């Protein structure tokens, strides 16, 4: 088992490196560079060329890639061209906001999707099933920005319940204050700001997961061992949750992991609508300014997070499904 994890962890390095190299080449190949963006519309082509050469952007791409990789090997992500701050610091500053939103959204999604999916599978073709599949269809097809704006118009504008935009106090900071002093206002501020963006992302993600839980459950419910469980007189609740759901979870965990990775990679649209200061917006700004080091930094972190999540999902298979565990043991 440990050997499996070690092997998988070792594979992360070439994946992340590969992503970095591909992105490096792509971002350098598309037209436009930071020198031009920096000097703006007023600069002459000669001035831009001068700055381009001063920034070392006129060197062959292979040379630039080499020096980038060399710095990366030393753990140096460089300095953002436009913000003048170390890339690592900028990315780490935005990462908590992204994590907070991703965790909250995923929590909402799972809390809605798992019960809903199970119920619609157990009561297939019932009213609940039709309604939940209707919700899933709606959630999958509804554009995120539209849902976001809709929530803002109702919760902020019409009912004045929640702040329309921005991030309040960091959640953990609010929680710490509550535990230390008993003052609940910072945590409330954090939750009030978090509610709408998390709902927006959570509902659309829930829609996807609900469908997955339902179809996976339906498949499992028709298996022999479920019939056997019922036949031996196990209570229906135990049949569904202990025997069926646990076996149905494998594909669900995969999709949850992938979705979680996508959320952590930055939900750009939601972050833009709710002015949420996450890593997605940082990356988009960096790309539109051709801030090469910052783009690389964002991509590196996202690729790393994605790879680690994938690993976590694979490891969790072995916890959920003993067959996988044994399979690994046999292969080894």
């Amino acid at each position: 088992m440990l050997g499996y994890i070690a092997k998988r962890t070792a594979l992360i390095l070439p994946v992340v490196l590969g992503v970095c190299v591909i992105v490096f080449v792509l971002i350098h190949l598309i037209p436009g560079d930071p020198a031009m963006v920096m000097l703006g519309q007023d600069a002459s082509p000669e001035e831009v060329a001068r700055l381009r050469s001063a920034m070392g952007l006129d060197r062959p791409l292979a040379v630039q890639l080499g020096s980038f990789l060399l710095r990366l090997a030393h753990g140096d992500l460089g300095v953002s061209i436009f913000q003048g701050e170390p890339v690592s610091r900028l990315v780490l500053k935005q990462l908590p906001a992204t994590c907070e939103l991703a965790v909250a959204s995923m929590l909402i999604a799972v809390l809605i999707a798992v019960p809903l999916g199970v119920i619609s599978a157990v009561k297939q073709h019932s009213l609940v099933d039709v309604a939940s599949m209707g919700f899933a269809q709606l959630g999958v097809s509804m554009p995120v920005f539209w849902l976001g704006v809709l929530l803002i118009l109702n919760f902020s504008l019409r009912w004045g319940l929640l702040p329309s935009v921005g991030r309040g106090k960091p959640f953990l900071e609010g929680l710490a204050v509550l535990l230390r002093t008993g003052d609940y206002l910072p945590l409330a501020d954090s939750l009030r700001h978090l509610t709408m963006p998390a709902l927006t992302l959570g509902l659309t993600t829930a829609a996807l997961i609900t469908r997955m839980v339902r179809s996976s459950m339906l498949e499992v419910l028709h298996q022999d061992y479920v019939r056997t469980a019922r036949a031996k007189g196990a209570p229906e609740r135990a049949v569904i949750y202990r025997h069926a759901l646990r076996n149905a979870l494998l594909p669900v965990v995969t999709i949850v992991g992938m979705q979680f990775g996508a959320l952590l990679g930055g939900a750009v649209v939601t972050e833009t609508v709710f002015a949420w200061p996450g890593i997605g917006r940082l990356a988009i700004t960096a790309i539109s300014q051709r801030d090469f080091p910052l783009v690389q930094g964002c991509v590196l972190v996202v690729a790393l997070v994605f790879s680690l999540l994938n690993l976590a999902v694979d490891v969790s298979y072995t916890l959920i499904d003993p067959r996988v565990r044994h399979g690994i043991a046999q292969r080894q």
Partner: protein
Amino acid sequence: MRKNKLVLATALVLVLVTMAGCRGSSSGPSAPASEPRQELRVGLDVDAGTADPRLARDTSARRVVDLVFNGLVWLDPELKPQPALATSWRQIDPTTWEFTLREGVKFHDGSELTAEDVKYTYDTLLDPAFKAPYRSLYAPIKEVIALDKYHVRFVLSQPYAPLLSYLDMGIVPRAAAQAAGDSFGTKPIGTGPFKLVKWEKNNRIEFEAFPDYWGGVPKLEKVTFLIIPDNTVRAAALEAGDVDLIHSPLSAQDIPRLQANPKLKVEKTNALGFTYVSFNCADPILKDVRVRRALAHLIDKKTISSTIYQGMDTPGKSPLVPAMWAYSDEIKDPEYDPARAREFLAQAGWKDTDGDGVLDRGGKKLTISLKTHSEDPNRIQVVEFLQNEFRKAGIEATVETTEWPTFRDAVQKGDYQLAVLGWLALVDPDRAMYNQFHSRGASNDGKYSNPRVDELLEKGRATTDIEERKKIYREAAQIVVDEVAYAVILYQGYVVAYNQKVSGFQIHPNASFASLARVTIK
């Protein structure tokens, strides 16, 4: 089962805390009911790139600089230079200007403003290694000399009339800026009415009143810029009371709703910018002025203004915009007239010889590509609208929309036929015309060239008499309009919407926030 109860209880506590927060915040836990808190929250579309006035490039950076810094002069809403850090100035000869500084002005770090700071600010700005985006505007400055503590002299390499209009750039303290190096852009120190106290990138910038401000302590204790990228959401945040003031860019569709809201005030003025079609005069098809004129006659500016921009931006004519002192309504531009367009095209030899509905010449079809950038949805609509008009006139028109750096790269390299883009912050007619239309102009993307225009633009720079300059620029503007180097589609409007409780805000064509020093919350 117990696990379920735990989850339910946690959820209930979180909901209760959230709801409690709603009540807590709406009643304003710390503010006494009688005196409103003197805090202004402003919604901006993008984060500022820097707070260093010498490097300020985007409009948000310039709004930050408005609060934190002062220039030697400030431009009033009529764009006339008024005393700021300089109390007076005189022109000794055509290439020498002398400024007397205000005495006893304090920077936010407590140090006093001297002529050395002014010299340092302009010396660094002019140093190519400093990478200042607007360096070219100051290029005619040969030397800045600190004569004594309160007197500074600008020596120019040639007479340069627009100089005063550009001297509103913020003065930085030499010692602090040198010590801070690159970090000065995030921890600025100026002489302005507000100190920048906190900057969370992509989220918010917080300012506090500077008690030693030379212009008197600002009434507002705190100003917060909140970065809200989406135009409609920014408008909703204003309506919901989450911000107190927003300004252009705004979606035209949101403005009637804001105007109808009794809690809000919406003000509009002519901005110092225009939206235009750049014609690549070096292009084999477009180098024929008759083709350019024909295309100009196919641009229905009125419809573009009234439908796409819903009247927020008005139909344009020339690079001299209405907010400029050189503006003239008498400049004649090619009007929307498809019949005339066809005549011009026929004169240039473009006729539909094979009856397929597309004009051709020498066996080649007339194809025109229109480019713009994807960041501005209105401009995308403009190019699509023009594509349709061109097609109706028998031109095979294509549209290419890419994000700004790619688009700008293509335009700068001359890799385009027609491109829709805009100019902003045109505080002087020289700023709107010299770089754009002089054959050696830095931003003459379309390679337009006319010796008479070159001569006029040189003369406009060297002449200080404002009436004389008006004549010069109007003549030059009429020529570039006639020869269709640009087709100015729209004069940009500048809209500010704010809560009725905000009092004392003065709208400025250059979008300046300088009046926040006098704003109060009722």
